[in-house]
């Protein structure tokens, strides 16, 4: 296996580790809490 593949395998393990940590703590940078979406700045249907 090449050196880059070994480094990539290590990177994958780090990503999975972070993902497991985020899952166990219910963390996400994509949580909607605290935000008011701009698309709802106007009410009503978008149908034309």
């Amino acid at each position, binding site marked *: 296996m090449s050196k880059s593949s070994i480094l990539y395998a290590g990177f994958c393990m780090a990503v999975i580790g972070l*993902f497991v940590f985020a899952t166990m703590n219910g963390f996400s940078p994509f949580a909607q809490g605290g935000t008011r979406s701009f698309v709802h700045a106007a009410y009503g249907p978008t149908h034309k």
Partner: protein
Amino acid sequence: MTTPLPSVRALTCTSCGGTIALRAAGSTVSLICEHCGTTLDATDPQLRIIARAHAAMHRPLIALGMRGVLRGTTWEVVGYLERSDGGDGWSEYLLFNPYQGYAFLLDDGRRFSLGFLLDRLPSYTWGEMELDGEGYKRFGSSYATSVKFVVGEFYWRVAVDERVRVSDYVRPGKMISCEENGSERTWTRLWMLEWGEAEAAFGLERRQREWSRPSPHEPSPYRDRLIESTIIGLIAAVTLLIVAIMGGGSTRVASADVQAALDGATHSEIIRDIELPGRNAALTLTARAEQLDNSWVDIDYSLVNRRTQENFDAYALAEHYSGSDSDGSWSEGDSTPSIKLSSIPPGSYDLVVELGAHRWISPSRSLYITSYAPGASSPIPVTITVDRGGMFAGNVILGLILLLIWPAILLFLHFGFEQRRLSPVTEDDDE
């Protein structure tokens, strides 16, 4: 296998009188004097002059008589010639071993290839040349080449300006080359040597690796890494998905039915004593307002920790609209919006929900609304549920992107290399 080489026979050039070596006596037909460049007939005891030199002599990179071990066989350089197809030029060394016969060492200026004459014809199958079960794709059109410089001894009559027509068939790492002139056609199979292999065999300075202009049969330097990283990436992606599925479960911790007064004042409801045990967790707040009709409900959440008074705010909009126009009936809107809160600490919470429902009236006459909410002032029931746990889809997508970005980069580089490798095919279509 290293084999003993025969003794060299010294001859005198009949043109310049210089001493020249005959290394493959009995096989050599043409002998080009390395001092004056005159082509001599090696089959004639008097060394008859076939052609006089008309080009300045220069020394090849690998000197005649140099020996080197390539792929387990000791080869001696007996001849050297330079060819050109009108554009690019390349060098060919004729190698000799008394037990293995002749071989060619091609130098395109970047890399070396080792070639052997074929003693059988490749077959033509499914648009490709096939040899030993391996397919070779046609590389561009056939092209004319001519000898620009020659020195040493050869088993065929060779001279400057000798012309042959060449057709190449390639696969990564190998090439079959067909050379034709008026009287014969020969097939040669070439193996691309590893970087530095020929340099090490013949004591040359090792060349720098670069892939800006790959040879037609050059294997992609990214292929092995692409295969390895794809396998690693897929294993990692499957692992991530398994973790996501296993950690994606949620538990309902609270549920309440509340009312939102239509076109009335905003009012608050409090869902008390929401217990979140254990560690930090995601929280999903869902509002179910299925009786909405051409109206919306603004929902402001505030989750308050009873002990610390720390609060987490969120907003949701439940809406549903329908009507009909010249295209027929239509409907849109999400009457059951869900929002997720990240990493809520354990504790006892109250959820304060502020609701305000509003009826929508089209500002445009072209849009005809079929109905309004039943009863001008009747409240809209909304069911609020609170679920602990669950998976963020954004986390899964971000994780998959991070895991697969390196194989994607390698795939991009690999196809870019293959495009450059085969670019003459696209620029100069097959005949």
